[in-house]
């Protein structure tokens, strides 16, 4: 089991924080540009209306009949009108409106406080325009000049800023998507690298183990044989006498060598299948006597019909190892529960005991060969389990462990899946 904090260690967190900071900075910059563009456009329109007002006033002074305004045209001008203090139109770019009265009162401050009133409003066509009402003096008479300006050209800065915001946010979104892809890719590459390192290490270990096992096996048989002969000769069958101790230790060494040979053996992918409930029943029968001797209650909840890919004898070894570990974790009695169910095209076997549990710092290493928490353990049991299960295309994991017990889960693909 992998320590979940290692993946999101401080470098990744720092990188994420930096990315969020930079994204926020760019987002803020784009939004600020957009916010500043609006007053800039207003300033442009204000400047334009002041220039046009000055030009109109000059023409009105030169020609008090206002006839000269007839040819006054600019690209940004929607219309212009000169009003008296009653709102009556004295001049209008649409000549047919001269003599009528404007329906609004927006010109009133021009006469009451001699100030220019300007802002955006909407015409009957739906177009948004910039309208300014300013005082104009001609022949001793004060008039209100109403200028309506198209905003399209002045609003170019706003449109540009809006486009910038769009581009920045699109780039940021793309960058984040790519970043997530790269992050996922790097995680996979790292997992692959670790797996390759593990396999390489196991291969080296296997070569060394196989050599040692072969060298030990023959002399060990001799030692065990002579010790058993000595036991028979002396007639003492007690494990406490020296010959008995030699036999017991020889048997332990023999198990270690056998485990080692199983562990290093190259196994081809399984071609056979096994009825997993039968395998579990056989394994449970084999530990039944030991469980009873230790006052351990064994219960099983097994779905009967599941057929998995794998060799029955090898799978039996997996469950025997797991069950024996469970029994060893409950020296003072307890309960062992085995559950088999079908889930997403796989058989899932859950083995739960009420033993003393595995220390948290050992969780990530329980399947590593030669790592054991027991004084006389070989540290190969769970490593062998993992090897056999993975060979069958399955997965074994330590689901949970505490002072109240441990739960292991084995997932094996069903036949034909």
């Amino acid at each position, binding site marked *: 089991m992998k320590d979940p904090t290692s993946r999101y260690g401080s470098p990744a967190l720092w990188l994420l924080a930096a990315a969020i900071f930079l994204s926020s900075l760019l987002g803020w910059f784009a939004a600020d540009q957009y916010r500043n563009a609006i007053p800039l456009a207003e300033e442009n329109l204000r400047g334009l209306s002041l220039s046009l007002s000055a030009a109109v006033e000059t023409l009105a002074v030169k020609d008090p009949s206002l006839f000269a305004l007839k040819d006054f045209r600019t690209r940004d001008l929607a219309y212009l009108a000169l009003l008296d203090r009653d709102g009556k139109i004295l001049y209008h770019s*649409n000549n047919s409106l001269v003599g009528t009265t404007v329906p609004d009162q927006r010109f009133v401050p021009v006469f009451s406080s001699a100030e220019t009133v300007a802002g955006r409003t909407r015409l009957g*066509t739906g177009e948004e325009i910039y309208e300014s009402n300013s005082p104009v003096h001609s022949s001793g008479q004060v008039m209100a000049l109403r200028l309506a300006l198209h905003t399209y050209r002045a609003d170019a800065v706003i449109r540009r800023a*809006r486009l910038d915001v769009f581009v920045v946010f699109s780039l940021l979104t793309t960058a984040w998507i790519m970043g997530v892809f790269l992050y996922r890719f790097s995680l996979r590459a790292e997992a692959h690298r670790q797996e390759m390192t593990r396999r390489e290490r196991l291969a080296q270990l296997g070569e060394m183990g196989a050599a040692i096992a072969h060298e030990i096996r023959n002399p060990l048989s001799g030692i065990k044989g002579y010790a058993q002969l000595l036991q028979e000769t002396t007639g003492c069958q007690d494990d406490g006498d020296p010959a008995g101790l030699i036999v017991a230790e020889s048997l332990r060494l023999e198990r270690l060598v056998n485990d080692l040979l199983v562990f290093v053996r190259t196994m081809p992918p399984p071609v056979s299948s096994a009825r997993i409930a039968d395998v579990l029943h056989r394994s449970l029968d084999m530990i039944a006597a030991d469980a009873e001797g230790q006052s351990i209650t064994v219960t099983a909840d097994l779905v009967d019909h599941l057929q998995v890919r794998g060799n029955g004898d090898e799978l039996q070894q997996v469950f025997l190892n797991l069950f024996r570990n469970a029994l060893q974790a409950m020296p003072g009695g307890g309960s062992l529960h085995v559950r088999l169910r079908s889930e997403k095209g796989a058989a899932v076997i859950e083995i739960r005991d009420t033993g003393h549990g595995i220390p948290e710092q050992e969780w990530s290493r329980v399947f590593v060969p030669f790592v054991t928490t027991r004084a006389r353990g070989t540290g190969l049991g769970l490593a062998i389990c993992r090897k056999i299960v993975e060979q069958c295309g399955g997965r074994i994991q330590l689901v949970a462990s505490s002072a109240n017990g441990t739960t292991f889960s084995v997932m094996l693909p069903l036949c034909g899946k």
Partner: protein
Amino acid sequence: MKTGRCIFLVVLLMAGILLLPSFAQAFWGFGGDASRERSGLDFDSGYDRNTETTLRGKVVAIEQGEGSDPVMIMVRQGREEFQVVAAPAWYWSDGGISLKPGDELVVTGSKAQGKDGKIYLISRIISNLSDRENVTLRDESGKPGWHGGTRMRHGTAGGQRRMGGGGRRR
């Protein structure tokens, strides 16, 4: 790996929402395809006498709309081009005058600049000088014939006669 997948899905979801057509139009201001939406103008009942003007030019192209879409006439005057908004297609098909590219037109209408930067002329009277026909689509206040204003009137060199039209049919 689960956290990575969650981040990935959240980013995808955000990108999807931002690029949804309706959301994009509201957020970014793009996405509509009809000229009415692009211009931001009210072609159906919009009119403003303040900007009423008369222009003369040649027909460059005619875009026949469908149903309530307006018939649009592109008119060139010197180096400038105007989009003349005539009337909804259903109303125009009832008795609009015949137009073809190259015809000389005189159009009186309310001038407006759309959000797309184009100059539109929401027409009140269209006169085809080539065929010596004219049609009145709105009354003097700008109320359209299809909304109960002055009915569509045709005129010729010899005078004017009433044609169909009237209230909205659909």
